[in-house]
């Protein structure tokens, strides 16, 4: 099982420190808070997998922290820590959403098993999301559009880079089309007749990553009923696209580096070396230099990947492409839905041009898709666009930045059925920041 990001909340320094030391040696990323107040502060800035929470503390109690968390980020697993006399409170906490409780002092094995169980459960949820994302990916727009100078430069780079066999690193914000650029390089490369194999490093749970990449031999583990080829093998003769490479675990970084250096690997449970030949393209929205500095990304792997690199421009820096992109999406979605909509009204296009599109092309694509669904007439009107429609998403009369932000967040949440992960991704903020903003702006979920 992989490693977790854990927050320990306990007002006793010695308990905090001994537990943190233990969990650090176990390979987890650990932070501590000495009070409920400090815990809430940390929770607003960082997302944790697990909270180990002492029940009895001065000020904001463990139960209060639990209540706050379950209202704002119910996916974080909370384990209550309690002394023998407070078991009834711990049971009460479990009724309020805590995953489990531990009696102080606890057996190290008990703690290990509990963390493993929680991580397995969280990995299953992630796996589900990944499968949904894969399905969506299959229907995604597969060409690149843009007449702006910024995009012309990208096209020139792709044209120059594609015929070479060099590894390419594509950077840029979420939704800027890094995957499309990778596909364009593949399509225009000598490997274009070979497969284009995508590995979404951020979406595949760590425990599945090894078998996904390397495949496995029949009998390698309990569920390995048949030998399965991994994505490295499937990419032979083509291109391997490592999307969200910044999210890959340290173990996988070591393995991947070895494959990139030697072009040889073994299936899980296999003894026969397999030789592969493919081109590698990697993409990330993370600052890898920063990740190297904080020790979460290997420098040698970075240099192996960063042979040629370029950045995909955000949509706000190529607004001249907005009409073309919007029309393209309109044509696609009207064909898919058979709706008799033939254009985007001038007023709606003006609104599209004013908006900054923090979620980039993907946000625009979603906005047009939604507009096509709700549009009643032959042309898209401003009110059909999710960013400007009525009620909580209504364009504020005031020009205050806060009001604009509030309205935008409300609209993105509404458009995504209050799916926090998806909304946070579109808004390009982390989930805890989104929860805090929902709370701060008192944005209500419709009942």
């Amino acid at each position: 099982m992989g490693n977790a990001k854990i927050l320990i909340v306990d007002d006793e320094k010695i308990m905090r420190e001994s537990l943190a030391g233990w969990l650090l040696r176990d390979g987890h990323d650990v932070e501590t808070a000495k009070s409920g107040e400090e815990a809430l502060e940390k929770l607003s800035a960082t997302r944790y997998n697990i909270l180990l929470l002492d029940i009895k503390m001065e000020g904001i109690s463990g139960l209060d922290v639990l209540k706050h968390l379950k209202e704002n980020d119910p996916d974080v697993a909370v384990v209550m820590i309690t002394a023998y006399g407070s078991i009834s409170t711990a049971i009460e906490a479990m009724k309020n959403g805590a995953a489990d409780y531990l009696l102080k002092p606890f057996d190290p094995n008990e703690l290990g098993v509990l963390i493993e169980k929680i991580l397995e459960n969280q990995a299953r949820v992630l796996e589900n999301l990944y499968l949904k994302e894969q399905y969506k990916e299959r229907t995604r727009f597969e060409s690149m559009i843009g007449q702006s100078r910024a995009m012309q430069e990208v096209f020139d780079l792709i044209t120059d880079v594609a015929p070479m066999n060099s590894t390419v690193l594509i950077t840029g914000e979420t939704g800027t089309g890094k995957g499309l650029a990778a596909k364009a390089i593949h399509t225009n490369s000598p490997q274009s007749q070979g497969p284009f194999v995508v590995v979404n490093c951020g979406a595949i749970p760590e425990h599945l990553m090894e078998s996904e990449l390397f495949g496995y031999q029949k009998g390698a583990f309990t569920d390995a009923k048949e030998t399965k080829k991994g994505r490295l093998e499937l990419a032979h003769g083509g291109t391997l696209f490592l999307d969200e490479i910044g999210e890959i675990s340290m173990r996988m970084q070591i393995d991947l580096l070895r494959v990139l250096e030697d072009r040889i690997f073994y299936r899980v449970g296999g003894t026969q070396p397999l030789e592969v030949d493919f081109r590698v393209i990697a993409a990330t929205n993370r600052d890898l230099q920063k990740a190297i500095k904080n020790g979460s990304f290997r420098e040698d792997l970075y240099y192996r990947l960063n042979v040629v690199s370029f950045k995909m421009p955000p949509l706000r820096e190529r607004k001249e492409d907005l009409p073309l992109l919007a029309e393209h999406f309109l044509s696609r979605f009207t064909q898919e839905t058979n709706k008799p909509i033939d254009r985007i009204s001038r007023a709606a296009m003006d609104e599209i041009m004013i908006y900054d599109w923090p979620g980039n092309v993907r946000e625009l694509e979603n906005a047009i898709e939604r507009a096509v669904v709700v549009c009643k007439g032959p042309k898209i009107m401003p009110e059909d666009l999710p960013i400007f429609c009525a009620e909580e998403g209504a364009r504020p009369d005031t020009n205050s930045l806060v009001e604009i932000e509030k309205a935008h967040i409300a609209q993105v949440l509404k458009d995504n059925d209050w799916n926090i992960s998806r909304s946070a991704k579109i808004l390009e903020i982390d989930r805890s920041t989104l929860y805090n903003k929902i709370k701060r702006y008192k944005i209500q979920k419709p009942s």
Partner: protein
Amino acid sequence: MSASTEHTVVVSFIGDCGEELFLPVSRGIQRVFGCGVKRMPLLTDVDFALDPNRDQYHSTLILDKLAEAAPEGAAKVLAITAVDLFIPILTHVYGEAQLGGKTCIVSTFRLKEGLSPLSAQDTYQVRLVKEAIHELGHTFNLRHCQDPACIMHYCRSVRDVDRKSDQMCRYCKVLFDDEMKRLAKQASSA
């Protein structure tokens, strides 16, 4: 820095816990980490760390004292004791180490569980060597490994200790090499 202790792991026995174990432990350390090993008494007892309510010894306090007593220039210090160790949040620990630090300790107290009379001494000795290397691994910044055969795997029971090998897996070897390079770079820039 003393030339005699530089790049050397100091092994220090606390109390009577079988100094004949020095040879297998030192061989194990040399094989896995490639460092020299030296035996040196550092603490005469660990009574200062006794918690009378639990009748166990607080390992973190012992590590702090070991760090103070460590000879200048010793790369790492490994203490071996027969007393039962704990950290306040947990019921017991087999050992403890300063992650990426200098000192670590292993207790033999729970390593004798489930020994068969026929192979008792051999098994016990192998267990101790594995746990000593495991704790020393932490001082080289290695964390617990998911591979159940790797020496850095966290064992829930002595049976797990028996099952794991006395070697690092290939991931841990890479991470250990990284750490050695980092330490060498740090030493050359000092």
